[in-house]
């Protein structure tokens, strides 16, 4: 497999120094990419507001956000294709802000791949090595390794026009990986593939990340894909990073109302906070310190309980009554849609299959949740 040397050329270390270095690296690997005060505007459009971001060696970072939120712009600034309006970019401790793409230790897998139509697969993959004047034999070996890594053995002589979408994606990946970049950047890498291929490529990307031990940063608008692949997710909205953390934290403790709805399903109960007590429109009051003003109470569907009446949910701290609109059997769980008496609609995911035989559409039901299962967040205008 590809050996993946670190970019920094190190002087030989004494045994003690070497051991200490690995200890230090294990405890807190040095930041590989450091964005400081990075900003980008196109005329009056503020594509990326000033932001700081640090990426460590070996991370698999997803930049996740809806279309037009500035993800691609951010990635292109790291790769050298967009000049930041302000701020600095350091990679491996070196300021690369002013460097053109060809002189940065990054490689980008473009959304449209950008495979050279007048070259074969092997020529595409070997082009970067040819520019570096890599000796012929080594070039050939590395091209073959890269093709093996993306499972394209034997495709070397294929013209680009004769590739399927998934194969083209792999060639683009191999062409970037063969350069052994310090950071591999991927712009919507699976966006153009159909669902089945996307699943397969996700698996491949995870394997390649593991085998190369590289640092990957990818852009996506698909929250499931980000959750699936990344060890860390930066959620972006309107040119800002609104939350940055591991997938579990982002799912269980969304920082904003936007994050709670963008990642995973969420039931939102509108309410008002006054003097440290939140009063939901639907009824219950929740003690929750914070700034006075409109808030939402976020409860994940799988955290909600449902039963025939309010009395049946005695363990729940908060209970609301309504009418069951539908129950959809989805295999491992059942999704109930309930219209609350206040008019709001909520979704409950339950693994208790037995419930469904008791509850019928049109029945009066109650939903409820325990005290630790909600999150109160400031209300945001959509």
């Amino acid at each position, binding site marked *: 497999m590809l050996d993946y040397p670190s970019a920094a050329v190190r002087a030989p270390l004494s045994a003690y120094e070497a051991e200490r270095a690995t200890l230090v690296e294990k405890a807190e690997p040095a930041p590989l990419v450091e964005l400081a005060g990075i900003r980008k505007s196109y005329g009056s459009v503020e594509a990326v507001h000033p932001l700081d971001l640090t990426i460590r060696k070996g991370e698999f970072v997803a930049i996740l956000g809806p279309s037009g939120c500035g993800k691609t712009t951010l990635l292109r600034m790291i790769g050298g294709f967009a000049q930041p309006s302000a701020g600095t970019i350091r990679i491996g401790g070196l300021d690369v802000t002013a460097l053109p793409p060809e002189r940065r230790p990054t490689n980008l897998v473009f959304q449209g791949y950008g495979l050279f139509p007048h070259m074969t697969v092997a020529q595409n993959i070997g*082009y970067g090595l040819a520019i570096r004047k890599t000796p012929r034999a080594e070039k050939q070996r590395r091209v073959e390794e890269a093709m093996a890594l993306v499972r394209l053995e034997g495709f070397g002589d294929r013209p680009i026009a004769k590739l399927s979408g998934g194969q083209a994606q792999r060639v683009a990946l191999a062409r970037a990986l063969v350069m052994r970049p310090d950071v591999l950047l991927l712009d919507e890498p699976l966006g153009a593939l159909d669902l089945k291929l996307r699943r397969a490529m996700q698996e491949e990307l995870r394997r390649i990340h593991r085998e190369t031990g590289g640092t990957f940063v990818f852009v996506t608008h698909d929250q499931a894909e980000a959750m699936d692949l990344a060890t860390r997710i930066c959620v972006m909205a309107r040119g800002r990073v609104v939350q940055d953390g591991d997938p579990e934290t982002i799912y269980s403790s969304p920082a904003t109302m936007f994050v709670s709805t963008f990642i995973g399903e969420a039931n939102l109960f509108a309410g008002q906070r006054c003097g440290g007590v939140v009063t939901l429109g639907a009824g219950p009051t929740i003690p929750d310190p914070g700034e006075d003003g409109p808030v939402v109470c976020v409860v994940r569907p799988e955290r909600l309980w449902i039963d025939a009446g309010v009395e049946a949910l005695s363990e729940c701290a908060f209970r609301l009554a309504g009418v069951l609109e539908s129950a959809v059997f989805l295999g491992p769980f059942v999704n109930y849609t309930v219209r609350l008496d206040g008019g709001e609609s909520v979704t409950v995911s339950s693994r208790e299959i037995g419930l469904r035989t008791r509850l019928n559409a049109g029945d009066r039901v109650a939903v409820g949740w325990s005290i630790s299962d909600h999150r109160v967040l400031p209300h945001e205008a959509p």
Partner: protein
Amino acid sequence: MKAVLRRGLLLAPSTAIFLGVFLVPAGFFLVVSFWRVRAYRLRPDATFNNYSAVLTEYWQPLAFTLGIALVIAVVTTALAYAYAYFCRFRAGRFGMAFVFIAVITLFGGYLTKIYMWKTILGSSGILNSALAALGLTDQPVTLFLFNPLAVVITLVHYTLPLAILPAYGALRGVRDVDLEAARDIGAGPWRAFYDIVLPQTRLGLLSAFSLTFLFAAGDYVTPTLVGGPHTSMIGLFIQSQFGHRVNAPMGAAMSFTMVAGCLVTIALFALILRRMTRAVP
């Protein structure tokens, strides 16, 4: 079967025009080029005399024509490619507008452009007036007009839009993302141009060159009007053979020798272009 029939029907009109207006007359004159003229009448024959006469008596205008057409075509192709490159990669959303501006000058017509250059370069022309007004000359400079350079300038100017179109068409086919990908894996801007843009636009270059070369080689109006006595292009001789010298076989032989010369030149250009724009590093 039906599809074949339909395709045949669709092609029929253009094929008929091509056959009737081009291939049949050309074939006829190819045959005539081996005939003779006796007492102002065509006599069927199978002689190579016309061709040997062309190569011994007319090799100078032949070579001069190929040479000047080559200069015109190379200059025009280079300028057109640069202009088209600007329109494609530097002019942003105004690219199409710039191409349109260039092409629209074709509507000005051929003779208009020739007379325009006559007005600019002539002894009482704009260039001389300007030089006199600046006090740089006291006599009109007659060097500008009636020489091969005037022909080159005029024909480059006229054929430029014809060359810009295929060049722009080819450059439009080069995707931005390909160039960015090349830069990303280590190519500098020049290298990316040489390895990615040039090989993908070779056909456009060849079309631009061929169009301008053939146009320049076949032209005889421009040399008549701005070329002067030393610009003896083969078109003038062919015209006079068919005209007042009433020697169609000789004219036909000149024409076909010229056609052969043009084909060889274009083939050579294509070969050199291929060599110079290696598709693969």
